[in-house]
């Protein structure tokens, strides 16, 4: 069953009520979806809760999935709406801590440079406005095209392109400031 396509697994869920097929779909898509939600929320536990809610909604609405669409785009659209709904209720800023990556002592000496770069980029990403961060995550990390990202975010393609352009400018400026500050400190 593991070699079946997403559409074949969906058919098994809908026509035969096969929940193991749905478990396989979840297992196939959970990593990317959770990683994106973690990037959007900046809070791992909250992101995982929203991912659970996303898959539950997907299960309930599976009949409405159009077979000519891409399952990942459909799932990300549900995740995006779930994230927006949560935000409306909680009105949080989602700017959490970077506790998860602050344990410098655990990194090996050879990995330190890479580690600092990743940490700086994560911090710079966290400073981006939400829509810019989501556009960058969808297009660069998840590999969606601009039109797929626009479909997920339910906005014009031009808006996604403009979010990405602004995000890149801001990232470049924040990262160069960080580098300058580090050089001055040494």
């Amino acid at each position, binding site marked *: *069953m593991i070699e079946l396509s997403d559409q074949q697994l969906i058919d098994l869920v809908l026509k035969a009520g096969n929940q193991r097929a749905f478990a396989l779909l*979840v297992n196939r898509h959970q990593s990317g979806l959770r990683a994106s939600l973690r990037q959007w929320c900046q809070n791992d536990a909250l992101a995982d809760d929203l991912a659970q809610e996303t898959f539950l909604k997907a299960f309930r609405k599976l009949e409405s999935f159009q077979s000519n669409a891409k399952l990942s785009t459909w799932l990300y659209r549900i995740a995006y709406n779930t994230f927006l709904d949560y935000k409306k209720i909680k009105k949080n800023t989602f700017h959490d801590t970077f506790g998860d990556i602050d344990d410098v002592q655990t990194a090996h000496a050879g990995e330190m440079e890479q580690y600092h770069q990743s940490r700086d*980029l994560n911090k710079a990403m966290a400073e981006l406005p939400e829509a810019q961060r989501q556009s960058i995550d969808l297009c660069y*990390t998840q590999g969606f095209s601009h039109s797929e990202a626009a479909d997920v975010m339910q906005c014009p393609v031009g808006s996604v392109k403009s979010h990405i352009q602004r995000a890149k400018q801001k990232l470049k400026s924040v990262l160069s400031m960080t580098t300058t500050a580090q050089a001055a400190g040494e």
Partner: protein
Amino acid sequence: MNDQEFELWLGQELKANTAYVEDNGFTDQLMAQLPASVEPQRQPINKLVLWATIISSAIVALLLPVQSILHSFTAVFSQPLENWLTILGFGVSMGMVSILVLWNDRSRIFEV
């Protein structure tokens, strides 16, 4: 770093930065929240086809030669015991074949 180099670096860095998120019970936790079973999709019945079937069945029933069918049944029931055993054996064999076919189909559908 010029724009092109930055674009390339950003793409590589973001992809390298996003490690695979291990399942760690995520799927099991989710599956425990799903309803016990999903009702399989039902094929919508076309009302026109349904009515056509009912009407044609009624016409066939009216045209049936009831008397000759009753006569055939009487003839069957008056068969000697050996013939009954043959019919029973044939019925059991056909039943077993049907069960095997259905079982094979079920195993294929739910195969994991």
